[in-house]
């Protein structure tokens, strides 16, 4: 999957789960500090990403990703182009 598509889908899922507009979410945004995803929301987000990309993640690794851009890179490595 192309990185652009990953970014688009990831932002869509993030917006849906955090109940905010997609255009307010930027790659440099920190999930916790900028988007308000506390530790519980982060777990939900990981679960939503898993479903979106049909993956079973090692959550302890996924939770170390802190920004939207970092998440795009993380999934780009896991999903072959």
């Amino acid at each position, binding site marked *: 999957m192309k990185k652009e598509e990953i970014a688009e889908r990831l932002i869509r899922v993030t917006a849906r789960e955090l109940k905010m507009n997609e255009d307010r979410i930027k790659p440099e945004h920190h999930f916790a*500090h900028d988007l308000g995803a506390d*530790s*519980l929301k982060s*777990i939900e987000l990981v*679960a*939503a990403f898993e479903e979106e990309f049909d993956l079973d993640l090692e*959550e*302890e690794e996924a*939770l170390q990703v802190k920004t939207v851009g970092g998440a795009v890179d993380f999934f780009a490595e896991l999903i072959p182009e």
Partner: protein
Amino acid sequence: MQEFRNLSPEEIQALELGGCTAQTWDSVQVSGDFDAKRVRDTAFFGTVRIGSNSAQVAIGGLNRPCGIFNASIADCTIGDNVYIANIGSVIRNYVIEDGVIIEDASSMITVEDATFGNGVPIEVLNETGGREVTLFNEMSAQVAYVQAFYRHDEDFQKKLTRLIDEYVAHQRSNHGCIAASARVQNCGMVKNVNIGAHAVLQGALRLENGTVLSCAEHPSFVGAGVVMDHFILSEGARVDSGAVLSRAFVGQGTQVGKQCSVENSLLFANSEAFHTEICSVFAGPYTVTHHKSTLLIASLWSFYNAGSGTNQSNHMYKLGPVHQGVFERGCKTGSFAYNMMACHIPAFSVIIGKHMANLDIPFFPFSFIFEEEGKSYMLMGINIFSLGTVRDEEKWPSRDRRKAPVKRDQIIFDVYSPFTVEKMRRGRAILQDLYEKTPREEKSVHYGGIIIKRLLMKKGIRYYTLAINRYLLGRFFDRIEGQGEKVRTWADVQKRCGINNGSDQSLEWADMGGLLISEGRIRTLMESVRTGDVKDISELLGLFEEAHQSYIEDEWGYICCAFEQEYGVRPPSVEPATFLDLVEKYTSALHSLLALVLENTKSEFAQSAQISYGMDWGDEERSADFQAVRGTYEGNPVVQKLISEKERIESRALHLKKLGESFS
């Protein structure tokens, strides 16, 4: 038995010169070396016996002669070297043992047929009755539990009641006892109260129909402003600072104070209750509530910590206050957490917010139960990797205050046990079923009064699986590694994994007031009571002690059964190749859970945790202030311990692999 003699004419004269009177001096007897000059301004009524009074006692740092000064004594036996002074009304019908000090007390009276709190019914959980627990001195959390909760078995209850009634009958007496070296100072009315050895009562306002058990190893304390009626205090209990207790049991090492009110409730070992209102509560071991505006009502708790303003409702304005709540061990409630009864909350769960639904979710331990827009949600299993749970496992045994020679409540401290692990296995099966049945377009499902988000079901399944693997495989490897000589052959390994005769193999377990006990053992125990094999209370207590002692072997019986269901083979039949697979599975679970705990711990040191630090200064000073007060993630002792755990896991995995390979 001490020998007493009649007073000599010289002694009577000395007593009268000292301002003493008696209904008749013939009824006042004394020991051989009684010193009449050490009794002044005292009126004797009925039969009074007085022991030797030649010693001195230290009171307030001053030595004073033993004796009786300014008191009225009626029908009492007074031991050696007792100091009694300034009794406002009378001390009547008491046996006062050696070395007792009674000073500035208004009255101490025992009336006929007193039972000293024994036999008092305590209406726990249901305020209108139906789950009464009968108080008696040697009551343990386990005896109370079977009294309160096993109401389905009428025959068992009948036999149990008979055992307790027989015990209570033996406590019945016309005389109370103030046992050796007890101190009663500055107290108000004391009526029908037995006071144990070395107990200290200082400034209590009113005590009626109760027993203060106490011993030299762990004296009990009743302090200023305390009012208690219909009560039993166990050894090492401390009730202080304006606490008001009515129909209450206070367990060994339990503390109640700071105007806490306790009514119709049982507080077992090592509990702490301050400020709070406690009503119709069965507080198992380690129930802790420290804050004002907290109400605990009509519920079961243990290993619990109450946030301020915790509250429950048990009255729906229909049939009265009949609803009950069960909060399994290890729960924590956040500030102003509220639960509508009836409810059944799973073990080691954290409750935040107001829950207006009747939650019935016992099979989801280690959960986070929270409120969002007035609805109740649950995140299953998240507390498995909470630092709080990790700390809990260590802190409870280290906070066992009990010092009495007999520890009455049988307690198994394990966080992960057949009780919680079987619940997780059941919960996981429920989640798997729900996940399969819930269409992808559904965001959530309702289960047991709570909302479970569909996406989080898989998370719950994963967390439970990790914890189940860690527990079952961990215990399996412990068994192989941990006993006696090194295993030399595969047959040795298999032998170690065998089940001992007499151990139970139930999958279902209960948390019986802190004692984790298998269903099979409960059935056997109840049968022993039903058939009359259990002859008295001490034999019944012995059975609970036996269950405690058998825990490790019974636990192994459980593990063998659950292990087979999880991995398709019983431990004694594991082959070397499977052994190596299991080592992999175990190590992977340990690493994942440790990583999750560490990740969870980072939030304690994150920027968001630094709010309000660095007062009056900038960002740099904020971080420096935080580090100065809270330290750093890397430098934190708990984190360091967790990080070193990583190495321990690696080294154990290596060792286990070598062991498995040596037999391959």
